[in-house]
């Protein structure tokens, strides 16, 4: 996997923390919190996920195809967030 900070590293140096979810508004109800924490889209296709390079504790976003295990690209969260706001 190509870490945006450290370059290409062995996949065993990384952990995956699951799909990127919509941030909750500050006044979200307890039910909305529960849904945000536990429910997952679990899509088959290209998904955006949180990953961390363990030795450097660097968190970033990877876009990966969950049908083929192909990593489409990796990018820093700032770049990802900028893209998201650009789209919406």
């Amino acid at each position, binding site marked *: 996997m190509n870490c945006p900070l450290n370059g290409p590293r062995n996949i065993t140096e990384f952990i995956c923390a699951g799909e990127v979810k919509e941030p909750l508004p500050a006044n979200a109800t307890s039910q909305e919190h529960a*849904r945000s924490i536990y429910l997952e889209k679990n899509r088959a296709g290209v998904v955006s*996920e949180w990953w961390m390079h363990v030795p450097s504790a660097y968190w970033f976003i990877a876009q990966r195809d969950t049908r083929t*295990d192909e990593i489409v690209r990796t990018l820093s969260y700032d770049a990802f967030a900028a893209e998201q706001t650009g789209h919406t």
Partner: protein
Amino acid sequence: MPFNLLRYGLSKKHEPWRIIPETPSELRPSYDVVIVGAGGHGLAAAYYLATVYGITNVAVFEKGYLGGGGTGRNTAIIRANYLTPEGVAFYDQSVKLWRDLSDELNINIMYTERGHLTLAHTDAAVRTSRWRAEVNKHLGVDSELIFPDEIAKICPQLNLSQDVRYPVLGALYHPPGAIARHDAVAWGYAMGAAARGVEIHQLTEVIGFDRSDDCVTRVHTNRGSVVAGKILMAVAGYSSRVASLAGLTLPIHTVPLQACVSEAVKPVLDPIVVSGSLHVYISQSSRGEFVMGGATDPYALYSTRSTLDFAESLFAEMLELFPFLHNMRMLRQWAGLSDLTPDFSPVMGLTPLQNFFIDAGWGTWGFKATPICGWTMAECLATDRQPELIEAFRLDRFERFALVGERGAASVGH
């Protein structure tokens, strides 16, 4: 007798004994119940709907072949030595059904009680083993915390030397731990259900649902559409995808779990041996193969590919426990898709949709629950009520923060 056998063998008149029911050429316009997924769980539900509740206008739709998913890919271990009272009570009922299942289904599922050892390599694991043993005993399930001198008597093949990286400090011993022939379980339930009028449609993929407000009205498949009174979804690794067709989002992510078997040798290993800390488990099948598995893959995936990472990490630990395996040859390696929940307990029963029922979240623990899942889901469909035995496993428990943290589940980190 030998002459009869010879005559029978040479005769061209006899028909082959057909285990798997034939797929009917047409779908009926409507069914009382449509079951999505012809694995052990879906077929068991169909069987008990027919036998216990007399509901036989039932179709089981399977996108691939019968028992080709988790049912045919698991490592066939059956046990009830879980940690939560909800889990123990549930799996114990399953063990009771397993014991009579060969007779009930009239097919030899080769259910064999071997004894099950869960090894503990740390003080924390010994503590959890004692906890599990006490919960089990309280609920009438036979489990005991034992130490290396007793482990050596039950499993002399195990390397109990202290001169290893993770010495064995103790084990949770569960004498009723068993293995069975997993394909035969699906075939047996399929035969029994089909004999009572249930239709089993292989190569029939559900591609969509029509919904009114809080009901599913029609089921669309690649072979046409049908009206369904009630729908049961039992599709394991594909739960999120099928549920999304009905507009539901689940607390599930899909992760591959890999396993492998060795070549067949004479019987040398009687008990089933599991190490939760090292993430390995092994048993010897009735055919003589060593059936082995490890941890689930570290991230979500819908592919059943095999990896070298898995084999390497499995045998690094396995060879320390069983050095005699070092010159065994591997025959096959494969993967199945596990539908993991955040609390390692299943999601069963009612959903926000009135006539849509769910049997999912079976992660790495689904095979052993096959009979009791079929039994309780049949009750749930027939009565429209959540059976008491699976009350704790409701889908809406997550919204109430009422999780059932099952640390007795195997192959997953806790």
